[in-house]
């Protein structure tokens, strides 16, 4: 299996925040913490685009690199997780992450910064899979239940895709080729071209570009 990945199709995202709500509800995420959020560019202007953003489970995760207590680890499927019992809430990961994924509960009496919280790709944490302790700290472990992340599965327009990176990129590649828009962007061939079948040559749409 390839690495687990998310991708958000900005052509499809309608900023409904269904993914955000599903994540909050599924994991009982406290107030002030948003593991996933929808970012809108050019809001209210022609060309407005929205993208659902969470932890991207980087291959070379900067949060892992900067953590002074080494609380992060990566599963065999490439999901970046952390141990809240080791986390000291220093916030280095928050500064290192280019996506703003690490979140810190700040509703303490003095605005205390608690243990870091972030998207787990619905894979829980180091506690026993599906245990109350795991749910309390990290939320549901849907991967252990044979399911995919709630945010991606609930997405009404299927803008947000999540799962095995190979399958997800195949779905997205096919979608872009069918609608004939998107493969003209820089880096398309590198990201979605299939080397076995001729790389970017194969991934050129025939439809009219807009």
């Amino acid at each position, binding site marked *: 299996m390839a690495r687990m990945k998310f991708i958000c199709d900005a052509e499809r995202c309608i900023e409904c925040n269904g993914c955000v709500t599903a994540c909050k509800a599924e994991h009982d995420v406290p107030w002030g913490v948003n593991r996933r959020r929808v970012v809108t560019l050019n809001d209210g202007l022609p060309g407005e685009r929205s993208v659902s953003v969470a932890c991207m489970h980087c291959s070379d995760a900067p949060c892992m690199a900067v953590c002074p*207590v080494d609380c992060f680890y990566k599963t065999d499927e490439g999901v970046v997780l952390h141990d809240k019992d*080791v986390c000291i809430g220093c916030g280095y990961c928050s500064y290192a992450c280019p996506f703003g994924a690490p979140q810190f509960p700040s509703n303490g009496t003095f605005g205390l910064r608690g243990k870091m919280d972030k998207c787990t790709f619905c894979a829980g944490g180091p506690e026993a899979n599906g245990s109350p302790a795991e749910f309390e700290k990290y939320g549901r472990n849907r991967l252990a239940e044979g*399911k995919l992340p709630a945010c991606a599965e609930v997405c009404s327009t299927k803008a947000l895709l999540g799962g*095995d990176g190979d399958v997800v990129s195949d779905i997205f590649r096919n979608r872009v080729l069918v609608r004939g828009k998107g493969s003209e962007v820089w880096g398309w061939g590198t990201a979605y071209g299939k080397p076995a079948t001729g790389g970017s040559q194969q991934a050129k749409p025939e439809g009219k570009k807009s």
Partner: protein
Amino acid sequence: MSPCGRPKGEFPLGGTARSAKGASRTALLVCCAALALAACGEKTAGAAKKSDVPAFQGSTGQAAYLANGYKAGDHTAWEQQLRNRTQGQNEYARAPQRP
């Protein structure tokens, strides 16, 4: 020669002042090194990172939450289950073909 009749720097027990000074310097260095390196073997006071159980081994939670038809424990079956589930996000596979 010293005023007491023995060569300068020589001690009655056979050693020299220089070797005694060297030994004490070595001992001092060893002590300093032991003191300096003592922290290297120190265990962190905080909790050690726990090892995680792979997701394919299943959940200890309620069986009602398991995906339909999914049986935990087999890595290949788990991968196939997730691949099938991912295809559920592919509307081109779900919807009938365009005429």
